[in-house]
C-alpha cells in the first residue's frame, strides 16, 4: 500500500491540469468534460483514501534521495553557547540519557576538534554548528574520534557520525488517515453539489480546476512530513481558494477575496519566517528529524520565536479570534460548495491540523503553548458564538459558527497538550481530550459542510441569504428543509446526533482536567449555538412561507444527493461511534499523544 501515497496527490493534480486542456476542445461544444473529470478524480480519491487503511500503521515514503533509518548524531544532547579558552567548544550542559551522555561527555569539557582515524591530523572546530557540519560532511555512518579537553587533560572519545535525511518524507499515520477520509468525502459531496449549483456561472473549467488544486493542496499538507513541503502545499490550497472565493466577480466577492488574500498572505509570510528560523537552527526540514533533534537538545529562545510565528500564522489560517476578521467575509462570499469546503476542510487542514502536528509531534511546546492554545480556543469559541447570535445572513451566521467550533477543537487540543505535559498522571485526560478534539473535527466537517450546502440550496431557490426573507422555505422545499433540520440539530448538539457526543466528550475532558471555568464557557457557548440555530430553524423551517417564496422549486437531484451523504454522516457518526472509533479516531488521537518520540520513531521505523 506504499504506492498509494504519491497517487493521492497525483490524481487531483492530473485532473486539475487536464481540465483546462480538455476545455479547449470541449467548451465550444458544451460537453461537460470538466465535471466528468473532477467527479471521476474525487471518486478515485475516496477509494484511495480508504485503501490507506491497509498495510502498516504508519507508512513513510521517501521522495528523492536517501531513505532509511538515519543514525543519530553522535554529539546530540549538548548545549554549548560559549567558546573555550583556546578556541574549542565549552560544553555548558549535557542532557542526561542523550547520545553525548552515552559518549561520556560532561559539562565543563572543551571540545577541541575531531579526527577521522587514530593518529590523524586534528581538525579543530570553533562552534557547535561547525562540529555538526563536520559530522554531516562525512559519509553516512562513519565513526570518528572527538578530542576533548577536560581540565587540562586531553581525552579521545569515539562517537558515531550522523547521517541526515535528504528526501522529502510522505507520512501516513492515524491523524493523516482521518484527515484524508474527511477531505475526500466532503470534496465528493461538494463536487456533486457543484454539478447543478454551478450551472449559473460562466467558464466552469476555471472553477473545477482550482477546486481540484485545492483538494490536492490539502492532501499534500496532511500527507507531508516536511516543513517546507507543508508550506508549499498550503500555498497551493490557499492560492486556489483566493480565486474560488472571488469566483462570482461581483464587487462584494472581490472585496472579500482581496481581504482574505492579504491576511492569508501575511499568515503565509509568518509561516515561512518560522520555517526559516527553524531551518537556521536545526539545519534540516524533515519533521521527524527536527523532533528527533529537539527531543534531546531542548528548546531555546529562537525556537520559541519560530513556534510563535507558526502559531500566529496557522492561527490566522484557522481564524482564531484575534485573527478572525477575514473568515466571516470570505466564507459567505464564495459559492456554496466552496464555502462548504473552506469551512469544512481548509481551515482545518491548513490551520488546526498543522498546529496540532507541530505542537504535539514536532516542536513540543509544553505548558506555555498549551495555555496559548487554550486561550485562543476559548476566546474564539466565545466571540464566534456571540457574534453569530446577531446575524440574519444565513451564510455569515454559519461562518461565525465555524470560528466558534474551531475554537472548541483548539481548546480541546490545548487541554490535551497541557495534560500531556503533566506526565504519567495526565495521559488518560490527554487521550480523552485529543480524542474529543479529533472527533469534533470530523463532526464539524460533516455538519458544517451540510449546512453550507443547504444554505446554497436555499440561496439558489430564493436568491437571498437573509433568513427573514427566505422564511418558510423549509415547507416549500421539503427535502432541503429536512436535511437542514438534521444539520441544525447536529450543530447545536441535540442528543442522537453527532455534535452532542463530541461536545459532551470535550466538556468531560475539560472538567476532568480541572479547568472548571473553561468548562462553563464551553457549556455557555453550546447554549448560544443552540439558541442561534433554534432561531434559524424557526424562521427557515417552521413559519408559513410567503407567497413569493411558495412557488420555488426543489433543488435538483445531485445537490440533494450531496446533502444526503453528509446528513447520513451526521446521524451515523454519532450512533456508530463504537464501530468506527477504534479504526478512525483512536489511531488519530494516539498519533498526537505519542509525542515527539513516538512520531520520530514511527516515521523512521516504518
Amino acid at each position, binding site marked *: 500500500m506504499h504506492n498509494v501515497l504519491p497517487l493521492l496527490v497525483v490524481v487531483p493534480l492530473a485532473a486539475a491540469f487536464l481540465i483546462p486542456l480538455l476545455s479547449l476542445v470541449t467548451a465550444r461544444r458544451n460537453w461537460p468534460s470538466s465535471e466528468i473529470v473532477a467527479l471521476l478524480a474525487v471518486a478515485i480519491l475516496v477509494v484511495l483514501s480508504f485503501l490507506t487503511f491497509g498495510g502498516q500503521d504508519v507508512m513513510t515514503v521517501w521522495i528523492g534521495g536517501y531513505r532509511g533509518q538515519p543514525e543519530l548524531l553522535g554529539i546530540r544532547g549538548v548545549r554549548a553557547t560559549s567558546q573555550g579558552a583556546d578556541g574549542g567548544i565549552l560544553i555548558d550542559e549535557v542532557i542526561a540519557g542523550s547520545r553525548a551522555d552515552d559518549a561520556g561527555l560532561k559539562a565543563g569539557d572543551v571540545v577541541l576538534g575531531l579526527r577521522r582515524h587514530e593518529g590523524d591530523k586534528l581538525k579543530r572546530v570553533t562552534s557547535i554548528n561547525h562540529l555538526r*557540519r563536520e559530522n554531516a560532511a562525512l559519509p553516512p555512518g562513519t565513526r570518528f574520534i572527538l578530542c576533548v579537553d577536560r581540565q587540562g587533560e586531553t581525552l579521545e572519545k569515539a562517537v558515531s557520525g550522523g547521517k541526515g535525511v535528504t528526501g522529502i518524507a510522505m507520512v501516513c499515520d492515524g491523524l493523516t488517515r482521518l484527515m484524508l477520509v474527511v477531505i475526500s468525502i466532503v470534496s465528493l459531496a461538494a463536487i456533486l453539489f457543484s454539478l447543478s449549483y454551478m450551472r449559473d456561472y460562466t467558464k466552469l473549467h476555471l472553477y473545477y480546476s482550482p477546486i481540484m488544486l485545492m483538494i490536492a493542496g490539502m492532501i499534500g499538507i496532511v500527507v507531508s512530513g516536511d516543513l517546507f513541503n507543508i508550506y508549499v502545499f498550503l500555498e497551493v490550497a490557499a492560492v*486556489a481558494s483566493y480565486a474560488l472565493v472571488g469566483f462570482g*466577480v461581483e464587487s462584494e466577492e472581490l472585496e472579500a477575496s482581496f481581504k482574505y488574500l492579504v491576511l492569508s498572505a501575511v499568515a503565509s509570510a509568518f509561516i515561512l519566517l518560522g520555517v526559516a528560523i527553524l531551518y537556521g537552527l536545526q539545519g534540516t526540514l524533515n519533521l521527524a528529524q527536527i523532533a528527533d533533534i529537539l527531543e534531546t537538545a531542548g528548546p531555546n529562545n*529562537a525556537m520559541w520565536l519560530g513556534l510563535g510565528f507558526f502559531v500566529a500564522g496557522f492561527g490566522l489560517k484557522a481564524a482564531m479570534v484575534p485573527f478572525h476578521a477575514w473568515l466571516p467575509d470570505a466564507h459567505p462570499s464564495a459559492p456554496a460548495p466552496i464555502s462548504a469546503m473552506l469551512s469544512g476542510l481548509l481551515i482545518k487542514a491548513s490551520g488546526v491540523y498543522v498546529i496540532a502536528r507541530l505542537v504535539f509531534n514536532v516542536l513540543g511546546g509544553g505548558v506555555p503553548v498549551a495555555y496559548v492554545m487554550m486561550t485562543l480556543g476559548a476566546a474564539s469559541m466565545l466571540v464566534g458564538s456571540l457574534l453569530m447570535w446577531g446575524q440574519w445572513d444565513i451564510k455569515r451566521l454559519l461562518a461565525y459558527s465555524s470560528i466558534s467550533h474551531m475554537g472548541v477543537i483548539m481548546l480541546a487540543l490545548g487541554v490535551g497538550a497541557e495534560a500531556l505535559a503533566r506526565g504519567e498522571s495526565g495521559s488518560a485526560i490527554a487521550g480523552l481530550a485529543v480524542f474529543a478534539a479529533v472527533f469534533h473535527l470530523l463532526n464539524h466537517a460533516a455538519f458544517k459542510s451540510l449546512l453550507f450546502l443547504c444554505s446554497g440550496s436555499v440561496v439558489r431557490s430564493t436568491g437571498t441569504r437573509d433568513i427573514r426573507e427566505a422564511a418558510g422555505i423549509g415547507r416549500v422545499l421539503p427535502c432541503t428543509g429536512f436535511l437542514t433540520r438534521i444539520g441544525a440539530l447536529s450543530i447545536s448538539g441535540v442528543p442522537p446526533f453527532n455534535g452532542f457526543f463530541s461536545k459532551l466528550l470535550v466538556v468531560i475532558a475539560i472538567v476532568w482536567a480541572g479547568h472548571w471555568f473553561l468548562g462553563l464557557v464551553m457549556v455557555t457557548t453550546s447554549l448560544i449555538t443552540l439558541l442561534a440555530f433554534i432561531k434559524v430553524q424557526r424562521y427557515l423551517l417552521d413559519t408559513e412561507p410567503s407567497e413569493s417564496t411558495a412557488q420555488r422549486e426543489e433543488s435538483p437531484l445531485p445537490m440533494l444527493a450531496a446533502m444526503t451523504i453528509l446528513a447520513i454522516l451526521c446521524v451515523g457518526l454519532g450512533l456508530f461511534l463504537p464501530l468506527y472509533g477504534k479504526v478512525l479516531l483512536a489511531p488519530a488521537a494516539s498519533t498526537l499523544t505519542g509525542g515527539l518520540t513516538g512520531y520520530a520513531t514511527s516515521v523512521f521505523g516504518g
Partner: protein
Amino acid sequence: MTAALAVLYGVLAFMVIGAIIAVETRDLLSSVLCLGAVGFGLAMADLLLGAPDLALTQVVVEIFAVVLLIRTILIREDTTKEFIRDTPHVAFMGAVLMAILLGTYFCFQQMTAFGDPPMIMGLGYIREAASAGAMNLVTAVLLDFRAYDTLGEATVIFAAVLGCYALLRTSGRKQEQQ
C-alpha cells in the same frame, strides 16, 4: 569586519531605507520604483551571499512584478486622499509591531550565528550530488532531491494563473434574459 561583509551591510542598509521610502512615499509610481530598487538590492545581496541562481531569478521576477505594477498604476486614476488610517489605529499597530520587533530582537540573540549554519541536510545533498549528476547543486536540490516541492510550486503558479483568468472574466454569472 571584512570588506565583503561591509559591502553586505551596505546593501542591507540600502534595502531597509529603500523599503521605508517605498512604504512612506505618497506617489504610487515612486513607491513602486523604490520597491524595484529594494528587489535589485536583494539580488545584489544574493550575489554577495553566494547565490547566483537566486540573483538571476530575483532580477527577472522583480522586473516582471514592477512592470506589472507600473502598468496597473499608470492607466488608472487614484483618488486616495489620505494614505494612512486614523491615528489610534496607527498608534496601536505601531506599538504591536514594535513589541514583536523587540521580541524578535531578543530571541534572535540565541539564533545560529551568521556564517555558521548547521547544514545537516545541505551537506547531505552536496555529498550525494555526484549521483544526481547536476553540477548546479541548487538545480539538483530543486529538481531531484526536493522535486516534490517544485511540483507544488509549479502548481501554485498554475493556480495563480487560472485564478487570474477566473477573476478577469467580465461576468461571473450567466445573464438570464440575454
